[in-house]
Structures are given as C-alpha cells and as structure tokens.
C-alpha cells in the first residue's frame, strides 16, 4: 500500500529522531494538539501515538509521534549487515528485535515506517552534530521512505546550525527550520509546503491539505470576528434600571447598578475570549499574563483605559463625529485628558465626577449611560465610545496571543507585553493605529447600535464584521 498515491486517503508522517529533540513539540504545534505530552526529560514518549488532523469531520493528514532512537549504532550495524529484500528490512528488524526490551523504542519508532509512512526527522539545531546523529540519518536513508529534516532549535545558539544543514543536504529531500515553540500559522503552512518537495506523489495531496488548513483558518477568523462583534453589541447595548423611591439610599443603588454593569461586561468579555480560545484549539494555554499586563487589568481600571482604546485627540474626533459620548467629549475639551476619561467611568460613583464637573453634570444627564431622575435609576446603554475601542483592543490582543502561542510550547510563563510606564500617547492596543475610515466604521457601528432602523444597524454590523475579519487576517499573517 502506498500511502501517498494521489487517490489515497490520508498522508501519514512519522516524527522521528533522537530522544529529547522536540519531536512531540513539533507534532503538537503542527497538529494544533496540546494534549501531546511534552517534557524536558528525555524518554517522555514510549509508544507511538497517531494524531489525525480532522477538518470538517474529514481526516486530512496524520502525524505519528514516536519514541527516540535508543540503539542507533546497533540498529545501523544490523541494517548494514542485512542481506534480504530491502522492502522487508524494517519488518525483519522489528521481528528479530521485538522481544528484546532494550530495543522496544527502536522497534516502536520504525513501525510506522514499516507501514510506509513518510518521515520528518527532528533535530535540535542548537547542539553539535555527532556520529550518533549520522547513524540515525543513515538508518532513515536505508529505510527508503520520503523524508524531510526539521531543525527545531531549542536554544538560541545557532553556531551549530551550519553543520546540521550541510549534513542534511546529503541525506534529506527537504530541510526546514521550525521552532516548535514559536511557530505561527504562517510557518506551519510553510512547513507543510516543504513536505510537498519530499515526494512528487505527495504534491497533490499535500496541496489539498494546505487548502483545507487555509480554509479552516479563514473560517476560524470569521467566527472570531462574529464573536467579537456580538460581544461588542451586547456590552454596548446593556441597559438596566431600578426604581428609586425618595426614601432609598441613592448612592448605594448607583453603586449596585454600576457593579452589575461592570460584572456583565466583564463576564461577556471573558466568555468571548474563551470561545476564541476554544476556536483555536487551546486546552491548556489560557492567557495567564503577568500582573501588570493590560489584558489582566480590570476592564474598568484606569490603566486599561490609559493604554488601550483611542488617544485623547482621536477620542475627541470620535465623539464629535458620532455625536455621542457627550461626557467624554466634554472631558477631553475640558483638558482633563488622562484622568478625565477614567473619571467618565468612575463617574457612576458620583463623588469624583461631582468634584470635576459639578453637580450639574449629573442632573438628568447621562454619564456612562447612567440616568438619574426622581423615580428611576438607569444604567446603559453606554455613551462613551472609548469602551468600544477598549473592548476591541483587548479582544484583538487576546486573539494575537492565542494564535501565536504554539501548541507545542509548554513553558506558560510571564513575558507578554505590559502596559506599565508608558505615556498616555503610547497606546498599546491596535485601534489607535487604525485609519480614519476604519475608525469611522466603528463609530458608525456604535451610533447605529441604538438605531431602531434595523437595516442601518445590520449594515453597520456587517461593516464592522468585515473590518474585524481583515484585522484578524493581518494579525495572523504577522502584519
């Protein structure tokens, strides 16, 4: 059976190599499966495990994780002395060594090759090349299977890279540098493209796999854009009112309303983030960012508003254009840029805003969507367009972290950008860098959200969706 005939169903690749070279990491990243066990201790993989990549219930490609070579010299010596039919060499080797526990791993790793899988030989390019590696390459050459070498540098040291590449040129049809811990979507596609070169028979089938991968990725971006847009709609349209009889403690009620409001938006945002996380098949990685990180800051914390969303100038423009966010606009015009935006949020508490703007601002006016009259207290819908930009920035930042976290990476440490020590003008989000037209799409969306004329609303939503899809595509392409 030739697995790679054009009519054949699923191409299979065994990931082979010396122990602890990062085979499982490469596989985990390639197949976007974080259930693959990865560990710095050699010998983590003891049995072969196949990871099919399934798109739309159809298996498109299959990767097999294998244990590392344990007896390369002896295996090579046996193969060199073998005098039978070359096609039976692997099965003969397995047959004669399967009862020897010392050769358990070697037999296990050669088994998929016996089943005519192609092979991806993984090495750690940050270490020197040794005779043992040459022995392994020779074994793989003798198997006669289509093969590709992947240099997975575990450390930053690149001084040994040239030696590896020179050696690989003698033994492999295709060579690729691929850092399993840093590989992005684009690099995964590039690796699959390299697989086409190892066997002509593979070209067509791998091409179809790549197309399936790209279509899947496009679809995920579409879904992520829709999820973000829905989250924005829900958050910005939130409205809640309570009755406020004359005897009631007005401040307490306001406080409760504000708490309910922030809780709703935070929860809605969290839900969307988790949906995006699942969309990109992350089961372990869950954006545990350092304390100072923008994403980990409370949505309504001053720091978040300082480092995400639009700049003061952009915000003034936005307020003017949209005709909304009167309070925010006033803040900016009054010059209370840094603190003013924040006090717009904190204004619901009353005291701070009263100090800044005077009691007139509260009477009958809407500040962060909180309306006060004699009988009713009402929060929402939000009147400050900045919240839209902040939610957008946070969603895009989250998306960026999620898609760029390789599934084979298991260090889950700190080290994501934080929002400390930056001036107000040094916005860290994406939206402040958007063009005027793009911002206008957002502002139209913000304005038309509350429109009762549904076609306007739908059109604004469609425009925002299209914009988001384009932005997600650019982020995933690293632009």
């Amino acid at each position: 059976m030739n697995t790679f005939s054009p009519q054949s169903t699923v191409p299979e690749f065994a990931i082979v190599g010396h122990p602890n070279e990062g085979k499982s990491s490469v596989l985990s990243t390639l197949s976007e499966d974080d259930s693959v066990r990865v560990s710095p201790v050699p010998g983590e993989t003891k049995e072969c495990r196949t990871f099919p990549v399934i798109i739309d219930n159809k298996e498109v490609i299959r990767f097999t994780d294998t244990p590392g070579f344990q007896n390369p010299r002896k295996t090579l010596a046996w193969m060199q002395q073998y005098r039978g039919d070359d096609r039976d060499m692997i099965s003969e080797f397995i047959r004669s060594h399967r009862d020897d526990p010392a050769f358990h791993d070697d037999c296990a790793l050669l088994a998929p090759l016996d089943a005519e899988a192609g092979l991806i030989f993984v090495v750690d390019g940050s270490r020197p090349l040794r005779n043992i590696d040459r022995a392994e390459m020779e074994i793989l050459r003798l198997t006669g299977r289509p093969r590709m070498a992947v240099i997975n540098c575990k450390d930053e040291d690149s001084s040994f890279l040239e030696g590896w590449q020179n050696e690989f040129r003698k033994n492999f049809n295709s060579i690729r540098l691929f850092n399993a811990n840093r590989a992005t979507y684009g690099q995964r596609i590039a690796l699959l493209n390299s697989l086409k070169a190892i066997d002509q028979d593979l070209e067509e089938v791998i091409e179809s796999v790549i197309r399936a991968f790209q279509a899947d990725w496009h679809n995920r971006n579409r879904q992520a854009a829709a999820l973000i847009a829905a989250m924005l709609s829900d958050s910005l349209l939130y409205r809640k009112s309570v009755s406020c009889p004359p005897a009631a403690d007005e401040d307490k009620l306001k406080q409760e309303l504000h708490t309910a409001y922030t809780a709703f938006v935070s929860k809605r945002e969290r839900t969307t983030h988790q949906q995006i996380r699942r969309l990109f098949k992350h089961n372990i990685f869950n954006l545990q960012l350092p304390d100072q990180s923008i994403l980990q800051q409370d949505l309504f914390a001053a720091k978040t508003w300082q480092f995400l969303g639009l700049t003061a100038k952009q915000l003034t423009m936005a307020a003017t254009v949209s005709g909304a966010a009167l309070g925010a606009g006033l803040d900016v015009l009054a010059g209370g840029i840094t603190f003013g935006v924040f006090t717009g949020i904190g204004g619901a508490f009353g005291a701070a805003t009263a100090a800044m703007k005077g009691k007139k601002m509260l009477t009958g006016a809407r500040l962060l969507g909180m309306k006060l009259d004699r009988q009713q207290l009402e929060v929402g819908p939000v009147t400050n367009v900045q919240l839209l930009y902040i939610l957008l920035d946070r969603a895009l930042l989250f998306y960026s972290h999620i898609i760029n976290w390789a599934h084979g990476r298991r260090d889950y440490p700190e080290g994501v950008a934080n929002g400390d020590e930056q001036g107000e003008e040094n916005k860290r989000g994406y939206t402040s860098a958007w063009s005027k037209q793009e911002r206008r799409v957002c502002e139209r969306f913000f304005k038309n959200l509350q429109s009762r004329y549904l076609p306007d609303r739908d059109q604004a939503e469609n425009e925002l969706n299209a914009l988001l899809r384009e932005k997600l595509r650019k982020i995933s392409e690293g632009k």
Partner: protein
Amino acid sequence: MPFRINSVDILYMKKKLWSIADLVDLEFFFRQDDGRELDSLAARDRKIYTELPSALRGAEAVPSVLLRAWLCSRRKSLRKEAGESVLPGRIWQEVICFFYGTALLAGLFSGIGLAFSFLAYSGREPVNVAAYFAVFVLVQALLFFLLVGTACFRKIQGRDLIEASLLYRLLRRLFAELLHKLTGSMYRKASHKISAETRLKWSSSAAGIRQLRQRYGPLFFRPFFLVVQTFGVSFNIGVLAATLFKVIGADLAFGWQSTLQVTPASVQELVHWIALPWSLLPDPFIPTLSQIEGSRLLLKEGIYHLVNADLTSWWPFLCLSVFCYGLLPRLLLLLIVSIRQHRNLTELDFQQGYFRQTLHRMLTPQVSTAAREKGKSSVTGAEPASASSDESTVPELRHRTQQQENSSLEHSAPNSPSTPLIVLIPDELLPDCPAEELARQVSIRLGYILTQVFPFWTLEQSEEEELVAVQKAGKEQKRTDVLVLLEAWQPPIQELFSWLGLLRRTLGPEPVIILALIGKPTSESILTPVQQQDMRIWQQKSAALNDPGLQLIELIKE
C-alpha cells in the same frame, strides 16, 4: 564541625562486626550524598580522615575501620545539625526488636492456645493422637524437610539457605517480582499517562532495592528469616509447655482410631520409626505394642473398658516428637543462620566500587594552591582565587592543605601518590580533548593520576575489542578505576547503558566507573560545565542502573 573522637569511638571503629543498623545508616548517609557537589564531599571526607587518630590511619587503615569512622563522624555531625534525630538504623533496630518480641509472644501464645484446644478431655473422648501428631509434628516436619530439600537443591545452584526458604521466596516473589511485573505492565498500559520523570524515579527506586541485594546479599533478609524461626521456636515451646502443664495438672487420655483395618503392630512399627531419634531412651518414651493396642478407640464400644495406663502412655512420645521434629529443627535453623549472619557481617567486602568512592575521597589529600594577598593570614583561606586583579596586591602562589571547603579556590595537582585512572573518551571527541587540561581536572577534582586514555565507539574496532584493551591495561596496573567522558547534553540512551553494562562485566565489580559529564562545546574547549537540568536527568538515569560502583560527576565546575 570538629569531630571529637573518644576512646568509645575508637573501640567502635575497631570493631570487626558490623550490625545491620550500621549498614542501614551507612546507606542512609550514602543516599544523602547522592547528587551533592563532589568538591565539598571530597573536602568533608578527607577532613574526617585527617582528624582520625594516627593509629587508625596510614598503612594500617582498613576499609572497614575507615567506613566506621566515616559513619561515626556523619552521625555526630547530623546530631549536631539536627539535634537528637532518629537515624534509620535505630528505627531498623527497634522495628526488628519489635518483630522479634511479637514473634516470640505470638508463637508462645498460639502454641499454648492451639495445644490447649487439642488437649480438651472431659472423660468421654480421649485426645486423638493422630490429630495431635499431624498438627503439631507432621506439618512442621514437612515444612522443615521441604526447606532442607530445597536448600540442598539451591545449594547445588549456589544459592544461600535463606533463598531456599519458601517463605522468603514467597515474600520475594510477592514484593519484588510482583512489583517488577506490575510496573512493567503499568509501563506498557499507561506509558502515555505517566511522565518520563515519574518513570525515571520509579526505576531508580527499584534499582536501589536491587543494588542493596547485590551489595549485601541476603544480609538484610536474614533478620526476617530469624524472626520466623523465633516464632517457630516459641510456638513449639508453647505447645510443649501446654502439653506438659495439662499432663501434670489435668487428667488426660490419648487414644488412636482408624476406619481402616490397621493392626496395632503396624502402628507400633510406624511409632518405632518416628521415635528413632530417641530410641536409645528407656521404654516410657515409646509406647509398647500392648499400650498401642490398649489405647485403640472403637467408638461403638466406648472407652470404659480401656486401661488408664494405656491411655496415658502416649504423651511422652508426643512431647518428644514435638521436641525433635518441631523445636529442634527451628533451633538449629536459628543457630545456623545466626552464625552465618554473624560471619557475613564480619567479612563484608568493602572493596566494591560503591564503598571505594568514599574510601577514595578519605584517602586522597586535598591539596590546593591559592592566590593569596600579601599580609593576609594564611589560616583563613577563604579568599577567592580571583581576588587580586588589583596590581597593588601581588598574588603569592603557595601550596597548602585545604583546611576549609572552598570551591572557588584554584586547585592544583596533589603532590601525594594518587590512584591510577584510565580515561575512556568517545572517539569523535578525542581529537578535540585537551589532554593536559583533562589530566589536571582528573587530578584536582578526583585525586587520580591519569595513566592512559582509550577511545571508545571507534569505527575500527568492536566494543568488545576496545574494552578488552581497557581490561588488559587495568590488570597491568593492579587496581585501576575508570573514567568515562560523556557529554551531558546528549540524553542518556539505552545503547550507552548496554555499553556500561558490558564495561562493568569486562572490568569486574571492583573498579569505580566514573561517568564524568561535560557541557556543550564552545569554540575554545570541549571541557565545559554541565547545565543543571542535564545533570539532574543523568543522575536519575544512572540511579536506575543496577551498578553501585558507578559514580556520576560534573568534570568541570564553574
């Protein structure tokens, strides 16, 4: 930490007989040293040696005495650091004492209880001689002869008497082989669920147990065998005591019965053979034919017609049967195994590579040179080697014995005679390996003199041929330890372990095999320090090897 030695300590050190508790403590302290920095170990052990009275040092120094001194010092320093902490040796002692006590009491009470329950006689039905004999004599005799039989069989195979014990073999099979099989099947079934680190920990623990057996043979198992014999002895004493008590203080009658048409003559014939060991004793100890005839029970006739003298004639025979076939064999086993244990404990082989690592550290002088600033006291010896980059302080090179552990000092070769060492280097590393630097490191870090370097894993020779050359060189130099240079960043694989096994088989159990690890090569040298993560992996992997004479070190220290 000054180690004051008093006369009691000296007597203790000179004692030839080791106790199991001492060995347990010795193992405990060896385990504590696992993975610790070699320099500090060497300095500490040498200090222990230098503080010994001159009578125990020098040419007369015997491994047993030195190890006892080492143990004594380690116990004292532990006491000093952690107060009156209970050492595993003492726990062992107390647990074994508890076992002995429990076995003694349990044997005695079960013997008495069982005998009393058999000797219940109310005047209607005499005690069944056959039942008493079967329970208290036949079963025990069978067990004893089975043990003797298997012991003889195992003796032919060269195994110890203990290993012939059914109980021992049963326990061993239960604990060791079952464990092995369980872990084996768990490996297969759950290898994708258990992390490599856990697997390594398991196999290193299992190897630890196997090594214990390899080093001490059945020494650690014999106490349990003796506990079982103690139970047997006390059980028989209990049976005898209860029988005699009943005979003296109660009216007992013994009789025999059978459905088969057994004649009293054939019973007497059987009794005669059983009583062969005490056949020289006078008649009352063996029932006569008439007594046997007179004590036969026919239930339909009752016992009223039977003569009392015949019914009581059996007890001396039964008591002597218990004594000869129950008590005496157990006493004999107890005695033989105790003597054997005693002999083995006085003749322990401390020349195994495992113990020699410590002995070597004790016997190797710690000599170092240190750049010292002028005007500073040479007694402190704590200044770092790189201290004087300042031109105003001219470094003065002088030799001195290292009195205090200081890893930052620059060492030089010891000027005392050292043990020869053969170094094995992978063929592909040999051209890049700076011979002088290697010899220097071997000398200052390990106190050996590098005598010969052999490449291994060459393209020209087979592994066996390479190692035969090493063996030949070792024999020429009497006793030679071997150092194998390995790159720590390369994961330890099965092929290397098979090779190490072959090396051990070729060299025999005595030489210490030192696995000297080096780090990733730089453009300047291949002798670089090892990363701690790599070191940890090698420690776990090498611990899983069944070779107590294997020592793992980092060759270069930062």
